[in-house]
């Protein structure tokens, strides 16, 4: 579904992604994870042409991404940012309809789609009349997800979609997203630095460090056959507090 071949990317002469290749299969949820500055968000932006690599090529739907087809390809994918990236001058529903209206889709179909998405994300249609400034963080992320799903894209890109939420909202939206992803069967690429989130959502996990792909595998394989000591270190780092607590209770 998505293919990256020998990608390198620099900012101001600093290479932040080194000669990286990756293939993301259809219908899977793939999580890009790693410490801050490892290049995971850059990689995500390269996949939808918000950034362009110096070397290598990227294909979506077997089509090589280029400046001439990027707008067309972007219309076939969905993108959710950490803060939602909703347009503050439009109501939630206007945000959702923007592209469908721009592409002059049938209004009846648009209405139906909105109703469908409300049901999917448990958002009331009344809430959609509000402007983003009047919504809570969790509501904003739900609306952003609905906007991304509006045109029924084959691929969904999410850049730390839960990063700005408080822990309670985080857990509940994470559970919901899990249900939504499995119901829709889309290809999902999600960036996070939270191992718990990755463990809960991912079919496959990409562990990155300093612009290199360390390992690309299922969680159990990462745990059982780490390709690098850092993989184990990274997985365990986030488990540690809980393990210590469990040990104390025992």
């Amino acid at each position: 579904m998505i293919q990256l071949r020998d990608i390198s990317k620099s900012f101001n002469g600093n290479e932040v992604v080194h000669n990286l290749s990756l293939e993301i299969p259809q219908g899977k949820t793939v999580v890009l994870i790693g410490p801050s500055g490892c290049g995971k968000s850059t990689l995500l932006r390269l996949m939808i042409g918000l950034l362009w690599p110096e070397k290598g090529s990227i294909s979506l739907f077997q089509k090589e991404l280029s400046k001439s087809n990027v707008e067309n390809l972007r219309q076939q994918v969905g993108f959710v940012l950490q803060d939602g990236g909703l347009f503050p001058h439009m109501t939630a529903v206007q945000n959702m309809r923007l592209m469908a209206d721009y592409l002059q889709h049938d209004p009846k179909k648009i209405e139906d789609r909105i109703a469908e998405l409300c049901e999917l994300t448990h958002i009331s249609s009344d809430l959609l009349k509000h402007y983003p400034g009047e919504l809570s963080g969790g509501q904003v992320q739900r609306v952003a997800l609905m906007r991304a799903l509006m045109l029924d894209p084959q691929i969904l890109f999410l850049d730390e979609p839960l990063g700005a939420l408080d822990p309670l909202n985080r857990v509940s939206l994470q559970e919901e997203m899990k249900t939504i992803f499995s119901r829709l069967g889309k290809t999902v690429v999600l960036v996070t630095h939270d191992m718990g989130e990755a463990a809960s959502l991912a079919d496959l996990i990409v562990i990155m460090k300093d612009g290199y792909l360390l390992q690309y595998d299922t969680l159990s394989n990462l745990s059982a056959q780490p390709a690098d000591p850092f993989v184990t270190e990274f997985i365990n780092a986030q488990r540690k507090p809980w393990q210590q607590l469990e040990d104390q209770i025992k």
Partner: protein
Amino acid sequence: MRNLTLYACLVLCFLLVDSAQAESASAIRIGSKKFTESVILSEMITQHLQSNNISATHKDQLGGTRLLWKALVQGELDIYPDYTGTIIYEILQGDAISSDADIKTALARYGVSMTDPLGFNNTYALGVTPSTARRLSLEKISDLRQYPELRFGFTNEFMDREDGWPSLRGHYQLPQTAVRGLDHDLAYKGLEAGSIDLIDLYSTDAEIAYYQLSVLEDDANYFPDYRAVILYRTDLLDRVPEVQTYLTQLDGIISETEMIKMNSDVKLDGYSEAEVAQSFLKVKFNTLSEIKVSTRLDRLITTTSEHLFLVCLSLGAAILVAIPLGIWGARNSTTGQVILSVVGIIQTIPSLALLVFMIPLLGIGGPPALVALFLYSLLPIVRNTLSGLTGLPVDVQESARALGLPPAAQLRLIELPLAAPSILAGIKTSAVINVGTATLGALIGAGGYGQPILTGIRLDDTSLILEGAIPAAVLALLVQWSFDFAERTLLSPGLQRKQESTS
């Protein structure tokens, strides 16, 4: 649809400017400088031609000598009155001239002719209050050498004229250094209030008698004669040959006493220049020309429409140019810097200077004022458009691109609506500044609220000054309010809430 209406309005406005110009092109245009005597003389010439069935319009109180001369040579005016001394030293400076025939020869090079003198000599003189004269026993200009502490206040024109202060100082070896330039009509007030000790006078000024000023004797024969004459474009005689006859009829008919009386009738007794000129012509030629008596309301309607015309058209054009410039600048930071510097430099040109620069290109009246106001309106709008667009949050810009909107649609649907509060604020700033600056348009014949202010200063008539100043202030407030209203109605409620929460 809204754009179409806007364009239709602009086209209409341009047609109006055009037709206004066409109308004045067929009539003979007589100009006057911004002092009473010049206005009376031009009014007299205008009425005299009109009563002989020649179409003529008076473009009154346009400015100083250089402006009127330029306008005459450029063909923006056909006729205006001036003085021999001024012509020799200010206009033809450098040419060796000893007689009226020499002047005529020199003027012919510019395609300009001169009538014989109208009769009176209105020379420059220096005056002090009677008490100063008594206290320091001042009688002659040379007496001033003993009092270097005296403060002089001269007209701005006198300050740098060939026959003005610099060479007067050299001629008499005067030591004074506290010398400043100010408006002639305000100089009398300054003298009376004691903030200056000596001013330059025109010898036919009505105020000399009114304030009982002591006129210092020109004991070293510095000042030349300033005999009033009429200058006109020689090609006027090809268009309207009979004009020469009527201009010649005015030769030698005004004595010095008569001129002082007429100045006094206007400045001290409150008659209009038109009335004074009319009664003079009645005595001399037994003609009664029609003069338009305008009520305050008539004038207010005229000045308001002139002012609105200047402001709306120049601001409208500035919006149409500045927003695209701002968008262009926001796309590329180098281009943006260049654009901002250029419009910034324009902004630093003093408004009067900019108005005068426009005259060789566009003549006098509405067009140069419109262009100057247009140029002044650019900076706030360009700057706010540019900063509004470049200051958009990164996540919003990113998600607009990620949705797959082409750049033009991103601009129209996302970036411009989000930058709208900033752009609107820029337009508001421009509009308020524009309302104020447009009052200067009166100096080059564009009318507006500046006209009564200018006349009011000249005639020392506070009610006339207020007739321009109050509506200008009210208009500025109305502009402010209407933009506040527009902000509330045009801007998305989503943005207003955001503004409230951050303010």
